[in-house]
């Protein structure tokens, strides 16, 4: 198992997890509402900067887990603290550390009660989210996975909107229900392998029924997180009621954990079951794309609109994953990043409107364009990105996913295309209403345009919209070797096996 790890000098990954946690502890003990914002901003910024050496030092020609560290934790149960990043996780870690300071800045004036507690929640969230992406020990992964629920629950339940208790409990129960079986699967895998080390569980000969059950347990947990249709019903409630920072974290990072789980666990640990169930999953993705699009088109609540659009966008990600070709996987990975950037930005924008007129109602936010030109500019670009305008980040992702789907089965890709159309429809509707409105717009002349802080929040995301949109190669370079290896092993596996069938059931 050591050949999978490259030990390097400074434990950057531990720092990424530890720094926010330490910051949270310090805030908890010494924090005052007056300085906690500044302190949290500094911590998250430092964390973002600490991602740079990881990105810089990452050897993208190597498919092993890098920056890895292993510490014995509970030797009796073979549980270790093992962390490392590969081409799949490194970009998600970077996305997390990028989004965090923006979330802090976006909450600067929005949160005005229990500021310290809020910031502690954000820091704990950051620590747990990074932990999920870098954990290579299944117990460690599970701990981070569950740990994330608590601060997120608090974020919604304390600082949320009018129906916060309903939304937070629904969120908590759904996610928890999904992960109970995940724990069962982890234990079953441990009993089979005698280790919790994740790479050691991949590409193993498991019995067919065993694989299928493991896959289903994984699937439930991850599909709820993504969320895949029809497991999405927690999402609109949570998104809508959460404070801006909470919505952004949910959309940008938490949803990615589901698809990350598919890539990291389902494909390598249960390849047969994944291939067996790929077709229904693909059609489920299509259903999500269409359903999310149609529902988003009907919304009057701006946050709900973006929330349902997430269902559609994440449908493209799962579509890309389960076509099992390079274009599809690249597209899925890019789409994960893109969704994190674009949808996060859109939630930030909606939050900025909310801060001004205290409403999420689309009808009350019409005709902002002439009074908020800066906002209109940012909002236009993010909306264009959300419906995959060429030259923006989402286009590349969607295009690659579609190309992968065409290579897999043209009918599948053609079925996904109406989803792209729907995306254009609901985003242009939102954009048109917010910027232009109609003949009887409410009086918006009292609204002030974006301040410097708000521009600073949106500008980095806009930079990435065009960077990925016009030069995605550096991002693809990070993921390509890992994805190639994953595909190669998958194909070798497919050839080596008879393939799984359901014959033995019937």
């Amino acid at each position, binding site marked *: 198992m050591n050949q999978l790890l490259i030990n390097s000098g400074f434990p950057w990954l531990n720092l990424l997890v530890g720094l926010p946690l330490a910051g949270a502890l310090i805030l908890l003990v010494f924090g005052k509402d007056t300085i906690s914002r500044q302190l949290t901003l500094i911590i998250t910024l430092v964390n973002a900067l600490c991602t740079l050496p990881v990105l810089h030092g990452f050897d993208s020609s190597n498919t092993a887990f890098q920056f890895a560290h292993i510490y014995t934790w509970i030797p009796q149960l073979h549980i270790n603290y093992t962390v490392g990043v590969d081409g799949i996780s490194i970009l998600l870690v970077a996305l997390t550390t990028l989004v965090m300071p923006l979330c802090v800045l976006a909450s600067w004036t929005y949160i005005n009660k229990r500021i310290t507690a809020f910031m502690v929640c954000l820091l704990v969230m950051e620590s747990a989210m990074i932990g999920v992406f870098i954990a290579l020990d299944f117990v460690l992964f599970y701990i981070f996975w569950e740990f994330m629920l608590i601060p997120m629950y608090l974020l919604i339940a304390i600082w949320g909107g009018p129906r916060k208790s309903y939304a937070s409990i629904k969120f908590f129960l759904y996610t928890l229900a999904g992960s109970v079986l995940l724990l069962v699967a982890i234990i079953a895998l441990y009993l089979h392998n005698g280790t919790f080390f994740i790479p050691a569980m991949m590409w193993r000969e498991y019995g067919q029924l065993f694989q299928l059950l493991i896959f289903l347990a994984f699937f439930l947990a991850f599909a709820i997180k993504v969320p895949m249709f029809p497991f999405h019903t927690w999402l609109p409630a949570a998104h809508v009621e959460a404070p801006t920072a909470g919505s952004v974290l949910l959309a940008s990072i938490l949803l990615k954990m589901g698809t990350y789980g598919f890539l990291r666990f389902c494909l390598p640990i249960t390849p047969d079951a994944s291939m067996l169930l790929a077709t229904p999953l693909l059609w489920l993705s299509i259903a999500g794309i269409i359903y999310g699009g149609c529902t988003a088109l009907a919304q009057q609540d701006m946050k709900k609109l973006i929330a349902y659009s997430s269902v559609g966008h994440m449908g493209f990600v799962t579509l890309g994953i389960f076509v099992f070709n390079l274009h599809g996987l690249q597209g899925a990975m890019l789409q994960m990043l893109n969704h994190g950037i674009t949808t996060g930005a859109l939630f930030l924008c909606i939050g900025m409107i909310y801060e001004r007129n205290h409403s999420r109602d689309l009808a009350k936010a019409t005709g902002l364009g002439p009074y908020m030109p800066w906002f209109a500019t940012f909002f236009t670009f993010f909306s264009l990105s959300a419906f995959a305008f060429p030259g923006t980040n989402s286009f590349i992702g969607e295009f690659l996913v*579609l190309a992968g789907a*065409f290579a897999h089965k043209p009918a599948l890709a053609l079925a996904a295309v109406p989803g792209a159309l729907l*995306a*254009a*429809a609901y985003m242009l509707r939102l954009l048109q209403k917010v910027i*232009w409105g*109609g003949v009887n717009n409410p009086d918006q002349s009292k609204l002030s345009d974006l301040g410097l802080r708000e521009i600073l929040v949106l500008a980095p995301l806009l930079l990435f919209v065009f960077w990925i949109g*016009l030069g995605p190669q550096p991002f693809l370079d990070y993921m390509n070797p890992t994805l190639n290896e994953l595909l190669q092993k998958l194909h070798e596996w497919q050839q080596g096996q008879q393939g799984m069938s359901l014959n033995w059931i019937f």
Partner: protein
Amino acid sequence: MNELQTATTIMEHSFLPIAVLIPLVGSLVVMLLKNNPNLREFTSFSASILLFAVVCSFIPALKKGVTLVYPVFHLLPGLSITLRADGFSMIFALVASSLWMIAVFYSMGYMRAHNEPKQTRFNACFALAIFGAIGVAFSDNLFTLYLFYEIVSICTYPLVAHHQDGESYEGARKYIIYLAGTAKLLLLPALALIYVLTGSLDFSHNISQGVFSANAPGWMVVMLYIFCLLGFAKNGIMPLHHWLPGAMVAPTPVSALLHAVAVVKVGVFSTTRVMLYIFGVDTMQQLNLGIPTAYFVGCTIILASVIALSKDNLKARLAYSTVSQLSYIIMGVALLTPHAIAGGLIHIVNHAFAKITLFFCAGAIFIAAHKKDISEMGGLGRTMPFTFGAFAVAALSMIGAPPVAGFVSKWYLLVGSMEAHQIGILLILIASTVLNAGYFVPVVYRGFFGKPPVGALEGGIREAPLSMLVPLLLAVAVSVLIGIYPNFMMQFVNMVTG
């Protein structure tokens, strides 16, 4: 690829991105100068002159048989934003840049005479639309084309919705639904599928061979062809033409821009570019795509002309005339013979100058006499002789009478249809000529010889301001000029047909 490169010399040219950037930068400067209308209009005008000069600077190299390219962004293997100037792009680029110069003056006159609000937004979006059009003209691959095509769709929305009343919002909604919808529903899958089939989205470098290999499944190529033909809905092919009359709510300079330059020409240019440089004449002949397309758009030619006959609103009549005339271009290319292709392509130019004149006249009549309906224009030609004179000449060009430009395209189209042995197409062309005369001649006749409506005041009406009159006379002069001396534009067409 290597064989192709030996056939045509390809040279990198750093002026290409400058040409595309000029209107973009112009638009940004216009936005900054919102408090100084004169300086703002001066910026627009100087940008248009600069653009025209840069576009013209490509001509000597092209005459030597060189194709200019400039890679801007490399996205994925086979997917890049790359610019290209060849004979085909010059046809459109010259039209767009020269008409921009004329249109800047005209719209300044129109907007000021009419006291239109939001003139800065108008000018900025106007320049952005030209940015998109020039980008389309200089695209080297389908992705770049698609990018600029979409930019045109988005940037012309504010122009169509300019008046911000119920009617214009409705028209603009229809406009964006048709254009963005078809692009997403048909073009996006076409792009992805072509990328999967060929590994790239680059245009080929000659019109005979497309990008598809011989073993590409025929049904798939046919499907892609249909996607592309209908996906570029800016080309106004029926039944996806409804956005065009709907967009008539826009101010007249916008209608002129939409109908003559930026939007519809982007549509037909893209359609024909894809027909010739993605599918190629050989593939289209093999799969027997050309003649059915010609008959399909032939239906549009006849139907739209018949609808135009029934319209009393001058702009609506012109709109349906546009729908009809655009299909000439596609029909010519679809016939796949050298003369027919030449006729189709040169009609991009001829229609542009004639149609912008007609719209300018409609705007001038509206500003000077506040009349929109043809039935109210009796005798107006006697008080506005220049406007109606220009209208008459441009109408002749539309009908295809010598010595105006339209004759050249009609000549080539007729020859081409005979070369292709298509009597049906020939009949369509003749019928359409009669119909064209049917809906244009009455306008001119009524203007010069009709009786003024009862109760109209004779004295109050004069010619429109000079800033409108001069551009429209210039445009019609160009129409006559390229009718008498078609070789300047034909040299670019000949670069395409070889």
